[in-house]
């Protein structure tokens, strides 16, 4: 087994949970195969390619005579000329293609263009960025007529820009097309609540719950509004329903405590606050409620004790020490907003298969907020999906610069580098990952695989695989250890590890095959 394939190479980047961790976007989830099944398929295909190459090598092994050497030289010269010509043509064609691609990715005429005069003050720049947001929303509405999502996106934008009245109009239009958008009902409720219309807020939130009974925070919001209306009994019922659904919700117990306080049911208020504190021990306001309940229950010592804790926790809250923000922060926030909107819009185009527009918008997001990693991650995902690996790697490298402590980024860089056969870059990336996540086995295992594949630092590969097994005794890790042991000539060790891998994953045919190969010395 001189050409051992890299088992599990694809397993981490295509792992759905990991993909979602990277940018929260579904496009990262490119396959529904499990990592182990893919390993098996990969091993098989690699083995077939190796066998073919061996056959070709056998055919070329015949020695050449002196007469034929001249012919060979002529042929070689001719071949070289042809190759150079072809290479020249290919280079010209490549340059032409790249130029064409760049032309395609340039913003189209109907896209919002930056103004010719650069803005002078932060206010001017913010106004310009907001205009671009509005123009973008208009463009989305124009490009995607009849799209409920476009209405909702536009509504969300108006809400953020402080035009709640317009937001409500767009949301209502969106709901006509997508009547099951619980999130929109939730937002309508928030606006109604802020306007002080508690009844209407309750009505919207109840609709949201009809669509999504598990929607987080909505029961509590309804309870708050009901309390504002003086309907404490109904608020209690709402919150009791909520804690049945989410027994770990400290917020709901806290609000329940408030409702019972107002009902002057101090004993039950106390119980609720105690439960809230159990669930969230650092929540100062629960201690405040608890101290109030204890005071009413004639437990002055406890009331005093809880007041002291409340005061201590309250003083420690940073929001009580710092307030307000500087103009430059505001500008950064608005830039971030434009980037977010561009990414959301990109998602709408991507869902409709418009890759070009998706890419444009993601680039626009990058331009708006160059220091945000999210647009780079989305672009990386898009480039991977469209098999533009160098571009994907470049985006990941940018993410790494911005967030050097993001471990998933290092893993993705390693994967992409391997696809580009850049073992040195992959190695560095794996090492970075290990440094950041020393307790996760994946980094050790994949680096071991890299050494095994490149036939370098084999004893190091064995150590890494052992570490991976030590951290997580999974089939994948035992498999890596087995291969490493075999590489360093430790057949017993290899057999033991492979046996363990097969035991842990008895359905994995590839493990079984490799195990048999080692066991029977084939």
């Amino acid at each position, binding site marked *: 087994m001189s050409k051992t394939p890299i088992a599990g190479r694809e397993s981490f980047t295509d792992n759905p949970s990991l993909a979602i961790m990277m940018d929260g976007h579904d496009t990262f989830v490119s396959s529904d195969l499990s990592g182990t099944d893919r390993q098996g398929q990969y091993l098989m295909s690699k083995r077939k390619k190796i066998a073919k190459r061996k056959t070709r090598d056998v055919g070329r092994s015949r020695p050449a005579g002196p007469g034929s050497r001249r012919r060979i030289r002529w042929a070689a010269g001719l071949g070289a000329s042809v190759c150079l010509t072809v290479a020249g043509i290919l280079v010209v064609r490549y340059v032409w293609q790249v130029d064409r691609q760049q032309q395609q990715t340039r913003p189209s005429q109907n896209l919002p263009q930056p103004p010719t005069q650069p803005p002078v003050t*932060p*206010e001017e720049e*913010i*106004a310009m*960025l*907001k205009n671009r947001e509005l123009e973008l929303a208009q463009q989305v509405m124009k490009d995607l007529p009849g799209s409920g999502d476009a209405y909702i996106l536009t509504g969300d934008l108006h809400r953020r*820009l*402080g*035009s*709640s*009245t317009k937001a409500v109009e767009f949301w209502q239009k969106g709901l006509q097309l997508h009547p099951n958008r619980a999130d929109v009902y939730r937002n309508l409720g928030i*606006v109604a*609540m*802020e*306007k*002080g219309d508690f009844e209407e807020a309750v009505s919207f939130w109840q609709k949201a719950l009809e669509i999504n009974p598990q929607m987080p925070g909505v029961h509590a919001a309804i309870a708050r509004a009901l*309390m*504002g*209306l*003086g309907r*404490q009994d109904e608020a209690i019922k709402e919150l009791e329903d909520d804690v049945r659904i989410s027994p770990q919700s400290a917020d709901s117990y806290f609000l329940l405590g*408030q409702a019972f*306080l*107002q009902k002057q049911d101090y004993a039950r208020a106390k119980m609720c606050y105690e439960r809230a504190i159990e669930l969230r021990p650092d929540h*100062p*306001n*629960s*201690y*405040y*409620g608890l101290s*109030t309940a204890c*005071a009413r229950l004639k437990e002055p010592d406890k009331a*005093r004790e809880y*007041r002291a804790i*409340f*005061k201590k926790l*309250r003083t420690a809250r940073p929001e*009580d*020490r*710092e*307030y*307000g*923000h*500087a*103009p430059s*922060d*505001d*500008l950064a926030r*608005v830039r971030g907003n434009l980037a977010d909107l561009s990414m959301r819009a990109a998602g709408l185009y991507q869902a409709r298969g418009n890759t070009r527009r998706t890419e444009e918008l993601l680039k626009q997001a990058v331009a708006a907020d160059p220091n945000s990693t999210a647009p780079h991650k989305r672009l990386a995902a898009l480039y991977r999906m469209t098999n533009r690996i160098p571009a994907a790697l470049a985006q990941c490298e940018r993410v790494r610069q911005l967030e050097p402590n993001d471990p998933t980024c290092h893993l993705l860089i390693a994967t992409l580098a391997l696809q580009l056969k850049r073992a040195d870059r992959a190695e560095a990336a794996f090492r970075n990952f290990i440094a950041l996540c020393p307790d996760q086995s994946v980094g050790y295992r994949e680096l071991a695989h890299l050494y095994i594949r490149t036939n370098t630092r084999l004893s190091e590969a064995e150590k890494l695989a052992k570490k991976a097994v030590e951290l997580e005794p999974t089939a994948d890790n035992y498999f890596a250890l087995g291969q490493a042991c075999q590489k360093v000539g430790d057949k017993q060790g290899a057999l033991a590890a492979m046996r363990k891998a097969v035991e842990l994953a008895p359905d994995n045919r590839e493990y079984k095959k490799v195990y048999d190969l080692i066991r029977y010395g084939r």
Partner: protein
Amino acid sequence: MADDPMTSRGDAKCETYLRWGVVLALILLLAFSHAVFGQIVFTDITRETQITFRHTDGGSGERYIMETVSAGLALFDYDRDGDIDVYFLNGALLKGARAERPPTNALYRNDGNWKFTDVTEQSGLGDVGYGLGVAIGDYDNDGDQDVYLNDYGPNTLYRNNGDGTFTDVTRAAGVDNGFQVGAGACFLDMDRDGDLDLYVSNYLKFSYDEHVSSMADGYRTYANPRNYLPLPDTLYRNNGDGTFTNVTEASGVGGHAGWGMGIVCADYDNDGDTDVFVGNDVAENFLFQNDGRGRFEEMGLAAGTAYKLSGSPSASMGVDCGDYNNDGLLDFFVTSYQQELAVLYKNLGGGVFEDVTMTAGAGAGTLPKVTWGNTLADFDNDGDRDIFIACGHLQDNVDHYDDVTSYHQRNILLMNTGDGKFIDVSDKSGAGMTVKLSSRGAGFDDLDNDGDIDVVVLNSRREPTILRNDSPSKGHWIQICLQGTKSNRGGVGARVNVVAGDLTLIDEVHSGRGYQSHYGMRLHFGLGDREKVDRIEVRWIGGGTDIFENISVDRVVVLTEGTSTVATQR
């Protein structure tokens, strides 16, 4: 069995009676509900009054924080003619601002019949400082009302000369309070020695060099007060000779720094001395409990007035007190910022309060607004106290970035339903409640001496709003002026208990209250259908208790300490 025709006829008759009974019951219910809830009507008569005052915040566009909190006003009888006069505070030109004439405070003499004359110049009260808060009290016990101004910059004490003019006696009195951003102020007799001491609320530490420029969504905004250091308030003890001594540290007040705003002094624990409630912006409120000798202990957290029910602080603005549920205990009502409810703290007795805002409906309508001047007063003379709230945002450009709210806002009127609850009647209370400006301080008193409470509102950067109470209520009333002899002359801090049949009402004389304002030294009690007052009990601060019996209603009476005779004010 066949139907008995007699029975059938009887059933039909019965049904007819039942129908008529239901109709009658409905009519009675409607009439009853009208009687119970009454109706409050306010008419905007600003133009008729010939008051031409226009507030300025002195801004130059730099958005200095004190612009947002200017200013309060005072309603008091400066010339002792029996009419309540109006004194408006004004801003002054801040750095970079220009004007042809510097803005001044303005005093309007009430000539009766809703006519007012500008007497600013002849009175000497045309102060040019940056006005924020005001308190009125007879600090020298000479029988007329003096004026203390809490400004941005040095404060000023004006002594009333008794002839309609005032003299600046700040330096002699020693009460200029340095160079602070001020807020509310109150006179109180903290040590029960018969003269009025002075509590001065300080907002925050500011200098032009420390000015913070802030933004919200690309719009320049006024900075949050938390960008500036909070300060302890200042307490002056009256030496009884026209001078004061700063006792901030010795009194225990100096150990508590906050972003002080509106304040009110009241005997919340009913132990015969005057305590102090300080509403703090963006932080916990202070409740200073007096030990009777002018030493204070801060009790806000233990008493339950520091925070809201949730345990979070309010951005407190105005503070007033009154017994909203007629249980003989003074409750506190505090206004606050947008997306917060104004808070009603119900006094449970024993020095403990409970936030009953939501169960009482006392925060109705306040959530999208910034709320300032406030009171608990009986506007419809039905024997319980209603709530008036002056509203207006402090960010003058908020309409551009948040249309849930607005810079100009309508004021709020909550009617007490008599069962400890309030309903929002702002939309049903006349054209006076439709005025939409950015209000700050508000004062409440009977400006036309017709037995109901009128309203004066100071609006930032605009003319004031004068609301005449035109409520159709026929409820009886009594108004009481106190005159101390051993205790302070104005009766500040005295507790008055009025018993009329089944109704028992309490109040105290406050000097400085609401949002950095002063009003209501002439105590007003609505009596509903009670045609006489059986008994009035006055507990004087530092003095004894006097009892007055069998008093006829619908008049202003003067009760003098140490006597039992009731005089009618002309």
